[in-house]
């Protein structure tokens, strides 16, 4: 293990306000083989895994970032004197998950799946920067097209869109529910 590399990576993650991506690591470090970087990152993450540690390094939004652990939430809030962070409304969450799974998608397509007009939720999500407009669809009326953002991934602690719950997982839950019904 390259100890020096590990220390530098710790510094970079520590300094970074957004998840530190491999791209940025390479930009800063220059010529270091990716396997070496990955090995050092893994060793570093191990350092923070013991139960007596309060912070840890998570992979989120395509990069590495320090966060506190969920079980210490109340201490942080007591320290910062803030309320519990607010969750998304279920209308917004529904809209967001539809966009996540069907992107790129238009408002009309979202509304068709939800069965209700979703303009307000779209607005909320745009303002929270969880989704963005990425262009227009080549269709009558040229409607605007939406996608989820990098911040969306970070918000849910996903590393990439591939980390979204898979279709099979969802189907499995449906099956289970069906069994309890019958």
């Amino acid at each position, binding site marked *: 293990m390259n100890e020096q590399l590990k220390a530098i990576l710790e510094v970079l993650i520590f300094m970074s*306000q957004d998840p530190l991506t491999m791209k940025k690591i390479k930009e800063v470090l220059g010529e270091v083989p990716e396997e070496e970087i990955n090995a050092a990152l893994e060793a570093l993450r191990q350092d923070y895994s013991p139960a007596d540690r309060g912070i840890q390094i998570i992979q989120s939004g395509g990069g590495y970032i320090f966060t506190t652990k*969920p079980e210490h939430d109340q201490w942080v809030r007591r320290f910062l004197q803030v309320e519990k962070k607010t969750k998304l409304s279920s209308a917004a969450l*529904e809209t967001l998950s539809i966009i*996540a799974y069907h992107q790129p998608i238009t408002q009309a397509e979202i509304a068709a799946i939800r*069965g209700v007009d979703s303009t307000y939720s779209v607005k909320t999500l745009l303002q929270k920067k969880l989704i963005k407009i990425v262009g227009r669809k080549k269709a009558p009326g040229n409607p605007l097209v939406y996608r989820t953002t990098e911040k969306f991934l970070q*918000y849910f*602690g996903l590393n990439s869109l591939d980390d979204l719950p898979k279709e099979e997982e*969802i189907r499995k839950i449906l099956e289970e529910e*069906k069994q309890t*019904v019958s």
Partner: protein
Amino acid sequence: MEPEVPVAQETEKVPEPQEVQEETAATQPASPSEDSYQVKLEIFEGPLDLLLYLIRKKKIDIHDIPIAVITRDYLEYLERKDQINLDREAEFLFIAALLIYIKSQMLLPREQEVSQEEDPRRILVDRLLEYQKVKIACSMLREKEEDQLMRWKRTFLPPVARPDELDLLEVSLFDLAETFFLIMKRKERENFRVIKGKDVSVEEKIKEIVDYLEKNGQMDFLEYFSSQETLEEALVSFFCLLELIKNHVVIALQEQLFQTIRVWLRKDRSPHLTHGHSHE
């Protein structure tokens, strides 16, 4: 459907059902208490959500919806709603119409057994199945959200190296002035013609610098200085920096003479000084 039946102050809770369900679902026995819809319309995210709720309550397989029963429940629910806003809830009415249509289709005598493809419920079932997936994805995402909301990240730039070491490097006004005059000399040589730009006020410039620092955390002052359009503006920006340092709004550090001057906002700055300054 009676639109707009104003019931005084009763919008929050749906009243207890006045009439007893005369017939419970033929397929599944449901206890009467379960059949009282003590839910307000607002909690459903739309007609599909409501429909899914009704189907689950009756513990029916989505693929085999007893349309007559569900249609009745659905309409009953809408009727209990005190106020129907036609604009907003057109979707609820649309599904109601669809349910009635499907019901009528199913009542029509058929020459042959209805094949799967021709089942009039098909279109609704497909939508419900798709919607059900969304609901499950939502609940899974909700769990992730809850976990993440309890994790805290730092939103500020952490200190670099030892703060006390940095303090020793704090730029004196003399250092700043010296640097400045050297640059001015250089700039004078570059500027063959000095274009008279618009008048820049000190207040504006201070605001611009503070805004920049608030957004970016720190500033490379020499870079900023040389990006100024006119010599006059550059002069004003330098004067502003001096003012900000003097008033303890910012801190400026320079490692060596002629090297870049890095500027940060002071954490302990007094807020009123950041918005312009006042000459008595």
